[in-house]
Each structure stands twice: as structure tokens, then as C-alpha cells.
């Protein structure tokens, strides 16, 4: 019997197989950041252990850092201490750190791909649930807790049970103006945000093949939001083209060798998945979440449902979501007014995301009373956006243009939504209080967020009059 892509990657990484125990699997790349690592380093010190492979470990700062002028001391003294702890830990244990002023600093899931460190067939872990982003390269990547961070630091391995496998076939073409973000939100909306608990997903089908690497990363990034351990997309020419020439990608003969190897990384025709899901892409419209988890989502042209519109077991969830979101059943999505816009995060903070948002913003002004932020996912993205003139389009329109980091996706730094604020956000979670206590989050694509910033409410971006050539 053939093997799935997941099984092929798994088999390549088994160090020890034992009866009645999880396997010990090898970790090719361990990404660390300031928030989920300090206690792991303390654990190493207590047990008098070293980092086994500092050369397979990479650190940056992203979660708790300010995105305003970084030459100033942090206002938040506790965050400053956390950042200082990471510096010391990296120094003591010999780990390379892309510090605040490095040109390679950025959100951990944005920088590894853009540097060419994320490669097909690898295992990548990080103390962050959005690690599945790297799955876009055919890389088995998943989030771990701090105890496991310590385990990987000490041994470069993890004890893991094999997950179940699910093929998600995206059939048909994605309509024009509908993005990868809409695709994944629509999937989560149809099946619910705990549907894939215990599974590793493989996204397949025509619509996936047509996506760019940036878009594939958006899809894989949100695998955790449907409950999955990880999400995978088999590498193809799009993947190889993206990787070729990147700083840490193999060069010359080694590149040829790698290509030969990577071309093997796909599920065999006769591979058996534990579950198969077919999803028709051709009917998807731009999506807007209206509730307090990513599965509570509707088309921009629909209305907010009421408790009567859902199966009985979901009624309480819908009632509690509507109460928190302060929305009445039957409210048209387009009638929801927002006062805050956040464009960024590991879901949608890449250059293509900013290009798409800037295309909508170009020549317009942010609505009065709306506070709008663009936070590039990395310093590299920031530089690129500035040189392409995108930053100017945003600032001319009244957006704030920031330094790279996680920012308002989770509001660990000073970029917090205030109580009562309603946010159109390109991030990944709309949980209660996620972006700030008593704030309300609506997850959307970058172009939808951009249009909402201009109009002060949600609009169907497919009907947006784009002003070409103005304002640049």
C-alpha cells in the first residue's frame, strides 16, 4: 500500500520506534521566541543540560515587542525583561538570535520561509500553535508547549504519537476576488473549529495548486483553527521556484540533489487516508467571522445567523457568541460597523497580503473614527513594501505603518484593541478578549480589511472600484 505525504515525512524522521510508546522523532529545525522559551531554558540550567544542536535552533523576537520606535526603551517593563531573558539565553547556549534591530527580525513563521530555512520534507517545531504555516512547503510543522521546547533543546527530538490523516480536496477554481483566507475560513465554517482534532491535514486539489506560496502559507497557518495538529501541501514547481536562491536554500549541485529528493514528497496514488473531505471552491464568497471562534463565519453578503438557524447542540455557543459580539440575529454583515483595522500577523503579514490591501487602499482615505494599522510580518517584508511604494499608499490613506511583530493579533504588546472596539482583522483568532478585553474581532482577508478601513463597515471587495495609478 502506498504512503501519504505525512507518513513519508514521518518515516524519514523516526529515531526510535518502541512498543506501546510514542516514537522518538528527529526535529530538523526548532524556532524559538521570547514568550514560550524562558522556562525551558531555566529547566535546562536546573538539570545542567546543554542545547544539543544550537545550529538547528533559531531565535527571534515577535510576540511581546513594541511595533513603534524601537530605539526607545520598552514602556512595558515585564516585556523588556522577557526580551532580555531571550538575549541572555541565546548567548549562554550559543543560539543565533535575530534581535530587534536585525534586518532578519520578524514573526517567526514569516522569517523562516523567506530565508529559505523552511524546506520540503523537514520537521519543524516551535512553541506556537501557528507553526503549521510551514506545512505549505510539504514540511511537517506543529506547535508545542514549553516542556516540549525544553525536550527539543536538550535532545533535538520529540516523543510523538502518529496522527490520523485527512485529505482535504479543494475542488473547482477559487472565484476571482476570493482569497486563500476566504478558502480556509469557509472550510472551518462548514465543519467547525474542532473538526480535525487529532488529524494532520493534507490540502489538495486544483485550487491549492493554483495558490502562490504566500497563499498556501495562509491556508496551512489556520490548520490549528480547525483543530488539526498540522496541515500539509505537497511541494511542486511553485514551491521550488519560491525557494530557489533564498539565503539558506541549497545551491548548485546540492540544489539539484534536493530537488530530486523533494519531488518524491507527495502522497502515493494508492495511499489511504483515515478520512477524506471534498470541498467545492467555486461557490466561496469573501468571508467575515461574526462569532467568537473562527468557525462562526459567514459570507459578506449574508446575515448573522440566530440560535434557531443552527443545530440544537450549537445553540448555546451561538447565543453566547452573539451576546459577546453584541450582534442581533439577522444583522447583515455589511451593516456591521468597525472602528479598528489590523492588517498583519503570521496569517496575512506577507508581502502579497500587503500588495492586495494596498491595491484597495490606493487613492482612498481611512474613514473618520477608524484606527487602522499595518504591521508587516518581518523587517524584510517592511523593506520590500517601502521600496514598492506600498507603505506610502497606506500612510497617505491614514494607516499607521509599523515595525514587524505579532502586534494586535494577540495584543501582548501595546497594540491592544480597547473595550468595545470592533476590529476588522487579518489575523487568525476571534476568541473573546483575544485582541483586548471586551473588544470584538472579525476575521477577514487583507483586501476585505482594507476596504472596511475605508468604508468603516464591511463591503464586498469584489465590487470595489480600484483606482489604478492614483496616489502612488
Amino acid at each position, binding site marked *: 500500500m502506498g504512503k501519504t505525504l505525512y507518513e513519508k515525512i514521518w518515516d*524519514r524522521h523516526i*529515531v*526510535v520506534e518502541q512498543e*506501546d510508546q*510514542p516514537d*522518538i522523532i*528527529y526535529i*530538523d*529545525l526548532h524556532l524559538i521566541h521570547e*514568550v*514560550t522559551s*524562558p*522556562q525551558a531554558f*531555566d529547566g535546562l540550567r536546573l*538539570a545542567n543540560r546543554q542545547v*544539543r544542536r544550537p545550529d*538547528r535552533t533559531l531565535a527571534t523576537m515577535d510576540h*511581546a515587542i513594541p511595533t513603534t520606535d524601537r530605539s526607545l526603551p520598552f514602556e512595558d517593563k*515585564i516585556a523588556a*525583561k522577557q526580551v532580555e531573558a531571550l538575549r541572555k539565553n541565546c548567548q549562554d547556549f550559543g543560539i543565533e538570535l535575530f534581535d530587534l534591530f536585525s534586518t532578519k527580525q520578524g514573526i517567526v513563521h514569516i522569517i523562516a520561509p523567506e530565508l529559505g*530555512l523552511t*524546506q520540503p520534507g*523537514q520537521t519543524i517545531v516551535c*512553541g*506556537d*500553535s501557528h507553526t503549521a504555516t510551514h506545512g505549505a512547503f510539504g514540511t511537517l510543522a506543529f*506547535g508545542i*508547549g*514549553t*516542556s*516540549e521546547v*525544553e*525536550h527539543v533543546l*536538550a*535532545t533535538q*527530538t520529540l*516523543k510523538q504519537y502518529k496522527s490520523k490523516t485527512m485529505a482535504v480536496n479543494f475542488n473547482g477554481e477559487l472565484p476571482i476576488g476570493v482569497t486563500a483566507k476566504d478558502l480556509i475560513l469557509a472550510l472551518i465554517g462548514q465543519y467547525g*473549529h*474542532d473538526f480535525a*482534532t*487529532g488529524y494532520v491535514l493534507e490540502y489538495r486539489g486544483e485550487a491549492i495548486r493554483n495558490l502562490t506560496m504566500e497563499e498556501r502559507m495562509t491556508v496551512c497557518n489556520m490548520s*490549528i483553527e480547525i*483543530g488539526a495538529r498540522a496541515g500539509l501541501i505537497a511541494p511542486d514547481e511553485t514551491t521550488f521556484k519560491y525557494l530557489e536562491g533564498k539565503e*539558506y536554500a*541549497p545551491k548548485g549541485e*546540492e540544489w539539484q540533489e*534536493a530537488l530530486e529528493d523533494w519531488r518524491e514528497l507527495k502522497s502515493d496514488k494508492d495511499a489511504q487516508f483515515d478520512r477524506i473531505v471534498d470541498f467545492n471552491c467555486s461557490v466561496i464568497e469573501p468571508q467575515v467571522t461574526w462569532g467568537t*471562534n473562527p468557525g462562526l463565519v459567514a459570507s459578506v453578503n449574508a446575515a448573522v445567523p440566530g440560535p434557531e438557524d443552527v443545530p440544537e447542540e450549537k445553540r*448555546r*455557543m451561538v447565543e*453566547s457568541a452573539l451576546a459577546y459580539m453584541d450582534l442581533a440575529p439577522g444583522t447583515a454583515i455589511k451593516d456591521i460597523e468597525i472602528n479598528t483595522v489590523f492588517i498583519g500577523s503570521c496569517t496575512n503579514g506577507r508581502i502579497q497580503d500587503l500588495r492586495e490591501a494596498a491595491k484597495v487602499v490606493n487613492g482612498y482615505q481611512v474613514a473618520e473614527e477608524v484606527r487602522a494599522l499595518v504591521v508587516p510580518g518581518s523587517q524584510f517584508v517592511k523593506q520590500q513594501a517601502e521600496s514598492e511604494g506600498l507603505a506610502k499608499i497606506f500612510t497617505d490613506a491614514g494607516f499607521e505603518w509599523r515595525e514587524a511583530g505579532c502586534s494586535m493579533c*494577540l*495584543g*501582548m504588546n501595546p497594540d491592544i484593541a480597547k473595550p468595545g472596539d470592533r476590529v476588522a482583522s487579518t489575523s487568525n*483568532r476571534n*476568541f*473573546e*478578549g483575544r485582541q483586548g*478585553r*471586551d473588544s470584538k474581532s472579525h476575521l477577514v482577508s487583507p483586501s476585505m480589511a482594507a476596504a472596511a478601513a475605508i468604508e468603516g463597515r464591511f463591503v464586498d471587495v469584489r465590487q470595489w472600484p480600484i483606482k489604478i495609478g492614483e496616489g502612488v
Partner: protein
Amino acid sequence: MEAFKTHQGIVAPLDRANIDTDAIIPKQFLKRIERSGYGEFLFYDWRYTSEEQENPEFLLNQEPYRNASVLLTRENFGCGSSREHAPWAIEDFGFRVIIAPSFADIFYNNCFKNGILPLQLPAEEVEGLFSKTAENPGYKLTINLEQQRIMDSQGYEREFEVDEYRREMLLKGLDEISATIQFETQIADFERTHKIYYSR
């Protein structure tokens, strides 16, 4: 890690599905670099008003639940981020067992590393426990991990299932890193032939 053999405690019925890690421990407390002391921040936005006063409506601010050590809740508990601060806060508050029909993957895994038993029971069984808790204030459960049995003092008793390896880990308070380091030779052998294409 503290070993877990058997535990008896007051059951706190938190009747809500999909409790996420942002609700368990909001982000502002993740900036601390310590591993302990998170209990006072557990369920922060529900437990305290925006003026940082205790919210008397919230279950854990009521007697006898301030001293509860068994958390009874609904499906998909612990969804969201990988923050181990969530089980740290739960453990630091005093909980040793969480009973729910289902758990999110990373959270479930994190519990075992912190001496917490996440006990997955069928939805109807959880429903029954909610009823018993409502009918008997101060309702207690005993969870015996060695025998894999859960019981109360009124004759309720049933077996539960838990993965054998994780059960051993809890029973012995096992340090997983020490166990893996025993395989150093195998890890080194693996590295000699395993191809990694990035060069740094």
C-alpha cells in the same frame, strides 16, 4: 513533576464549551518568565471585573469552588494557542483533574507534562456529572489513575481509558527528557545519515 496516583476533590462545574487558552490565561500574563504563580490569573477576564475586583458571579469566586480541584467542563477544552501557561495556571490554582467530552490537541498533551490528568469521558457521562454536581453542593469525585476508575461516595463508579504511556508518565512523575537522553547513541547515529539541506 509531581506524581499522580489517586486524587479526591471538589468538582467545579464550568458549564461552557470551547473554552480557549486566551480565556484560561490572557496574554498579558504570558510576559512573565517564571513557571509558577499563574493561578491567580486563571480565567482572568471572567474571574475579575474590568476594575480588577472579584466577580462574585463567577463559579470559582464562590464557595466551595475556591477549593475545587476537579474541573468539569464541556467539549473542546483548551483550544487555541500552545501556551503551557494554561495548564500552569490550572495546576497552580489547585486543579489536578479536568473532565470533558473532548480536549484540544496541544493543551491535552501539555497537561500530562504538568501532573494534570485530562480525563475524556463520553458526553452523556459528563452530562450526568453536571447533574450530580448541581444536585449535591460540594460534590466530590475520586479519580484513581492506578485502577483507572472514577467514583463518588454515593455509589457512582466507572472505568475510564487513558493511554498507557501517558498514564505511566503521570503515575511515576516521569521526566521525559531523561528517558530520551538514554537514546543518545541512536540520535547521534540518526544524525550521521539524515540529510538536512539548509546550511547556516
